[in-house]
């Protein structure tokens, strides 16, 4: 298996010199192709900052991030747009669908930006909609859909371009437990059947238990790592809970 994402000694500082916050502190890890990685951590641990840096929404202070061998911290202008367009899929906590467009148009926008023909677009959108069970909402506008449907539309938009990696920022954060489970099943499907590499940030242990590997971050550093291996989801969930308790326990000591 090849490495699809390599985080190499990444640092990210916020604020001025007098009050410096280290959001990411010399962080390094790798994600293999076809992996489903969850990143966990308490609020303020730096997990969203990390995701923003990988998705080129934010810029690192030092260090490098390689996606498919390409150093994305050095991308600019056209090649940056090309990277976002072709190699990256992004799913937000609050969906970020365009409410002027229907579900179909929201999904197809990602393709039409790449100048892909209408026929091909139609084929691919219908295909992915079938797989994620949103076929009958394709002609609806975002305000006519439920939260779960919206997030699956957003997921479709993220993966329709066959990106090298899909980044998800608290994707279940705005969903109820049933919708969450359906979305996570979809992620599982994407990962298993379509071989999509997924990097998901979450603070929810149940959500993380769907991943094949969980990386725990604390104060901008890797704190722990769990690999699912052949254990059942239930066992993996228990293991995660243990680490979270450990993390939380330590955190509680601070107060």
């Amino acid at each position: 298996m090849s490495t699809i994402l390599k985080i190499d000694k990444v640092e990210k500082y916020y604020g001025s010199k007098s009050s410096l916050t280290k959001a990411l502190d010399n962080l390094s890890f790798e994600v293999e192709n076809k992996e489903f990685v969850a990143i966990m951590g308490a609020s303020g641990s730096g997990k969203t900052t990390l995701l923003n840096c990988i998705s080129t929404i934010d810029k690192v202070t030092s260090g490098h991030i390689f996606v498919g061998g390409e150093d994305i911290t050095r991308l600019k202008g056209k090649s940056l747009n090309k990277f976002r367009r072709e190699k990256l899929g992004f799913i937000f906590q609050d969906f970020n669908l365009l409410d002027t467009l229907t579900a179909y148009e929201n999904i197809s926008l990602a393709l039409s930006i790449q100048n892909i023909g209408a026929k091909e677009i139609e084929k691919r959108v219908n295909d992915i909609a079938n797989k994620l069970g949103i076929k009958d909402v394709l002609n609806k506008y975002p305000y006519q859909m439920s939260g779960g449907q919206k997030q699956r539309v957003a997921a479709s938009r993220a993966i329709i371009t066959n990106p090298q990696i899909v980044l998800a920022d608290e994707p279940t954060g705005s969903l109820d437990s049933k919708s969450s489970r359906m979305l996570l099943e979809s992620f599982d499907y994407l990962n298993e059947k379509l071989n999509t590499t997924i990097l998901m940030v979450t603070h929810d242990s149940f959500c993380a238990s769907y991943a094949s590997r969980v990386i725990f971050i604390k104060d901008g550093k890797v704190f722990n790592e769990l690999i699912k291996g052949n254990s059942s989801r239930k066992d993996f969930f228990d293991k995660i809970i243990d680490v979270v308790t450990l993390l939380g326990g330590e955190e509680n000591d601070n107060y």
Partner: protein
Amino acid sequence: MTTIKLSSRNIKKSFKDYAIYFFTLILGVAIFYVFNSIESQTVLLDVTSSTYEVIDLMTNMLSGASGFVAFILGFLIIYASRFLIKRRNKEFGIYMLLGMSKRKISMILFFETILIGIISLAVGLGLGILLSQLMSMLVANMFEADMTKYEFIFSSKACIKTILYFGIMYVIVMLFNTINVGKCKLIDLIQTNKKSETVKMKNPVLCTIVFIISIIALGYAYYMVTGGINETIKTPEDIFKPIIIGAISTFFIFWSLSGLILKAVMSMKNLYVKGLNTFTFRQLSSKINTTVFSMTIISLMLFVTICILSSSLSLKNSMTANLDELAPADIQLTISVKDDEWLEQGYNEKQIENSKLGVKKTLEAFDFNIDNYFKEYVEYNSYRIDDLTFADSLGDNLEYVKNNITSMIPYNMPEEIIKLSDYNKIAKIYNNEEYTLNQDEYMIIADYDSMIAIRNIALESNQELTIFGHKLKPKYNECKDGFIEMAGNHINSGVIIVPDEIVDEQYLAFNSIIGNYYTNSLEEQRKIQEQLINLINNPLSVEYSLPNINSRVDISEASIGLGALVTFLGLYLGIVFLIASVAILALKELTESTDNKERYKMLRKLGADEKMINKSLFRQIAIFFIFPLLIAIIHSIFGITFCSYIISTFGNEQLLPSIIMTAIFIVIIYGGYFLITYLCSKNIIKEK
């Protein structure tokens, strides 16, 4: 999906939410067209050539004002589009994250602007062409002309101008948009609404201090333009002082009040916790807190609107109302007696010699016999002595007047002097009061209020004058009302009347005839006047000095024309200012409602019924609209007082009706916008 399709979708969406903005754009285009097309509407009118001159002047001024109007509307469009774009940050963030280039995002905005531009121009021009048909009736009415025939008028010149001006505005908007998009960072776009709103409570002590200082400063500015006008405003540039002080203190009043009002209401516990008041006041204070600057601008623009509208309307009224009083005779012909200094002005010796002939003899030389045309006439002379100037007639009071009233008038102008018997002849034909004088007495007639005030100071102190070597004392301790030269308004700054016996003919300055024609027909009067004007083409005119013509027809046409000019100019600027400022208010309120949808949803969940919510919404919008208007009205009370002082030559007796007219205007436009805003907001926060 193409860029154009995305753009049109976005516009369709915004049409629903910001209908009021598009409506304002359309209105702006329509008004721009209507006022620029006035010229072509006057073509059909049956008016005289001198009216055409006034129309020409009016067209030029309106077209000059159009530049200014374009600036105001351009400001509105740029402000509104920046404002609307800021609200779309997230949308642009998504585009960028999906890999769209900034160039392409700019293209989307570019198409949006073009679409909005084309739609608003097309609809606006259509509306403008319709409105201009109504306008032509108003134009005909203003110039007191009969509409010879009705015809559908389309001014291609105005149309092209409108398209050109608005085209330029939209191009500037496009540039602004492109620059804005180029500057934005993805992280800021994505995280726009994650930034929590910081609620800054201003320090109440500081607010109170600032408030008090601003009120004092504003009070001083008010004093400068009313009570203390003569001490503070000595040169025309001084007028900027109270304006700047007023503008700055307005800003700080808004700044401090926004902090104080909430504090004050919060301290009234019973009021504050009643119903949704807590919510309403919190909403309001955050709104006003973040919009202090635009509130100031809006308030000042409203102030200018009120002043322009009411002053121009009253100017128009007084200009046309006083005609019978100011031009009581049909015609006045005057020849000024010229001396050798006139050689330099291009007069020849023969003309200078003949200038002493007087009006009657001069006209007879051209075979124009006055008796054939005038059923009655009077002839009079007036005199000037170089060493009797306005300053001299003030005597010892000159210093006092210069220091305490004004230093802006020309004090070294020679006074005009007239014989008592001549004046009484004039008074008789004008139907004014006749006077008597003793051998050692003089009197002054004037009708220009501010000059009367100055002259009365000297007359009250019994100022003696030496005229033609005789010492004279004033008969009255004030100026008497009257004039010798007909004019469109009260501009006689003073003529000295002296006993006949003392006059020295060598100081003769003017010989005049005032007459009434046999005919009452304006048409025929005009023909006779044409004959007099055409004397200049007579070969004999190289030997004679021709009389100046001052006639009632001319004065009335000039008054009507000028009246129309100020009315149209006032309406044009007033309406544009009004819609520009109220559109900003409405737009702010509507976006506010869109942003606060969730809050209202929560209120509903807490059990607030629709009536309560609508009441809260109504109050928020009402206070938000009334606050700047209230301050503008207070400003205007002083502003109008000042304006009416400036235009007092035209008489200010007509002030009240024009203020009522202005109020009606404001109530209709401002109230209309308010109502639409409330209804749209109600619709926005309604649960679907």
